[in-house]
């Protein structure tokens, strides 16, 4: 689904007139000393500094594949969904040729958003400031009082800025501003094997329940992204109350829940997936569990996936897309400044699921990992609690410990790529390793880009 439209790219590509942004408007900081992947240390300034945050938007978000939406949100031309890539507002839509495309949600005239609805169906996007209007292919449909512009004005040059590459993987749509990206599937690498445990239960694939849970969290986006990549460690403590009420006796979690073994995948792209391994791993919601044909899943996905990442566990696709297979929660952590993120979460179900099974998964997800969910409530508390003390000068300078499972990453012979123990910071170290690499690499939009 790669776009054939030339990126209109940096907003400096004006047909007449010239703008030149001074390079020193953006100061790039060498972050080498803020992450020690070998020693397992992290400087807390990565969560709090405004300049580092701006650099993240330029060098981590702009060049990366970012999750946009699920293909099931687009059925007919004109169906649209508005979201963000980093802090850039974008419109994702199905054009007349039934191609999924994405545009910057900002009028080329004075910059206002041209679409203020969350989703819907439309024939065009009209800016309500002066009335510039755009077609579903991003081109200008009309400019009021066009006579007032000089002859050199060509409306063909002033279409919505298009996201140059939009690709999907098993229903998940990603986009990137990078003009020459590694293709999405290739960039996922071995991570796709783990994602397939959730996305590829059968030939019909997945759909999403209508609506998106959106809420704010007073914490840096990396706290959540990192946790979903690496942190099974927090489950027993943070979610003790939820594990208690989920347990059959309602008193305390079963011993095998607390003392689980499992694996944690990590890679150089910053992706991570941790999951308990058990021959009887199962979906939590009883109706979902009863419907699943585990034998067929073993046939399709293999024992290693059914006994691993099929059900429990969680994962992050770098930088800010995460998921939980057990309840079909997929979510993106939108950065909103160094101290705040916005969570946008969907419920993913198999298209083949009958209505009552979908409903069971939806209810299980909202009661566990919706914003009122018995797990999610405590996660929100953790991230705001990790964030707020970091503003103290002394506190900010005290390194954080990411040493669990240091040096245990290996090829385990059962899961692709390299894995560590379930209780490990391996994927956290890899996440920040990738972050450091991107933060220190000039992106295509910079003059010193090689």
């Amino acid at each position, binding site marked *: 689904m790669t776009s054939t439209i030339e990126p209109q790219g940096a907003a400096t590509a004006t047909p007449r007139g010239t703008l030149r942004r001074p390079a020193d408007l953006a100061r790039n900081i060498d972050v080498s000393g803020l992450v020690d992947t070998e020693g397992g240390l992290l400087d807390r300034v990565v969560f709090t500094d405004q300049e580092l945050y701006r650099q993240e938007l330029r060098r981590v978000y702009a060049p990366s594949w970012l999750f946009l939406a699920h293909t099931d949100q687009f059925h007919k031309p004109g169906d649209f969904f508005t979201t963000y890539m980093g802090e850039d507002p974008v419109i994702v839509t199905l054009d007349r040729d039934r191609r999924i495309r994405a545009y910057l949600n900002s009028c080329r005239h004075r910059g206002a958003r041209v679409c*203020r*609805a*969350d*989703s*819907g*169906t*439309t024939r065009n996007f009209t800016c309500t400031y002066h009335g510039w209007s755009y077609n579903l292919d991003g081109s200008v449909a009309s400019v009021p009082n066009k006579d007032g512009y000089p002859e050199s004005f060509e409306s063909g040059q002033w279409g919505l800025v298009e996201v140059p590459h939009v690709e999907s993987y098993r229903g998940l749509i990603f986009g990137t501003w990078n003009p020459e990206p590694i293709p999405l599937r290739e960039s996922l690498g071995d991570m796709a094997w783990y994602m397939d445990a959730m996305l590829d239960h059968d030939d019909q694939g997945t759909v999403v*329940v*209508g*609506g*998106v*849970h*959106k*809420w*704010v*969290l*007073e914490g840096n986006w990396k706290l959540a992204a990192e946790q979903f990549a690496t942190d099974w460690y927090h489950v027993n403590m*943070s979610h*003790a*109350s*939820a594990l*208690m*009420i989920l347990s059959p006796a*309602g008193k305390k979690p079963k011993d095998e829940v607390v003392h689980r073994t499992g694996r944690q995948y990590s890679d150089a792209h910053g992706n991570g997936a941790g999951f308990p391994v058990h021959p009887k791993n199962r979906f939590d919601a009883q109706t979902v569990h009863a419907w699943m044909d585990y034998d067929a899943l073993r046939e399709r996905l293999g024992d290693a996936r059914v006994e691993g990442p099929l059900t429990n566990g969680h994962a992050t696709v770098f930088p800010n897309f995460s998921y939980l297979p057990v309840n079909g929660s997929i979510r993106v952590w939108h950065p909103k400044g160094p101290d705040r993120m*916005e969570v946008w979460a969907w*419920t993913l179900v198999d298209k083949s699921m009958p209505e009552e099974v979908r*409903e069971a998964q*939806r*209810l299980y997800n*909202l*009661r566990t990992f*919706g*914003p*009122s969910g*018995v797990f*999610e*409530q*405590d996660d*929100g*508390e*953790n*991230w*705001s609690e990790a964030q707020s003390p970091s503003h103290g000068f002394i506190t900010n300078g005290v390194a954080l410990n990411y040493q669990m499972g240091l040096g245990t990453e290996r090829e385990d012979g059962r899961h692709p790529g390299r894995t560590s123990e379930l209780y490990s910071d391996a994927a956290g170290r890899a996440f920040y390793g990738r972050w450091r690499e991107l933060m220190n690499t000039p992106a295509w939009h910079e003059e010193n880009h090689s």
Partner: protein
Amino acid sequence: MSTATDQLRSRAGTRADRDTHFEVEQFYYEEADLLDSGRYADWLELLADDLDYWMPTRTNRLRRQQALSIAARGEAAFYDETKDSLAWRIRRFDSGMAWAEDPPSRTRHLVTNVMARHVDPAEQDGFTADDLWVRSSFLVHQNRLEREVNIFAGSRTDILRRTADGRLQVARRAILLDQNVLLAKNISTFF
């Protein structure tokens, strides 16, 4: 036809009288007091066994698509609960390990703009004109830890059932929160 039945029929859909209105308001104030005091088990006693407790998400839609601005049943909701699932959620607080509410929040549930009508059984299957349709507005102020503040404003549309012993119980509750992105890190209270 007995006179009582005639009376009931004539009340269907009409505004509740002053005494009934007072009773409904007092019922809500007591309910709010239980929630603000953290007496969740006692709050559960005010809910009917067949409770339907629903708080849909709300989306920004173009004016011509406003009908879609409230998530439909089966779509994304903040709450979609039965009495059992609420009891399950409340049991979590008894664990002593529900960290999002430990230390507990200070909440104040304000309930106002109460409009009470007798149910019209023709519109509400399974209810009688003894039962009440009530719409109210709420403002919930939540203050937590040092300086966290959340303000939740919205409406509740209830069906209050008149039980055999004359009490009121919440049998249906649809909660509309006046927010798009939930402006809080979680929802750890009830409405």
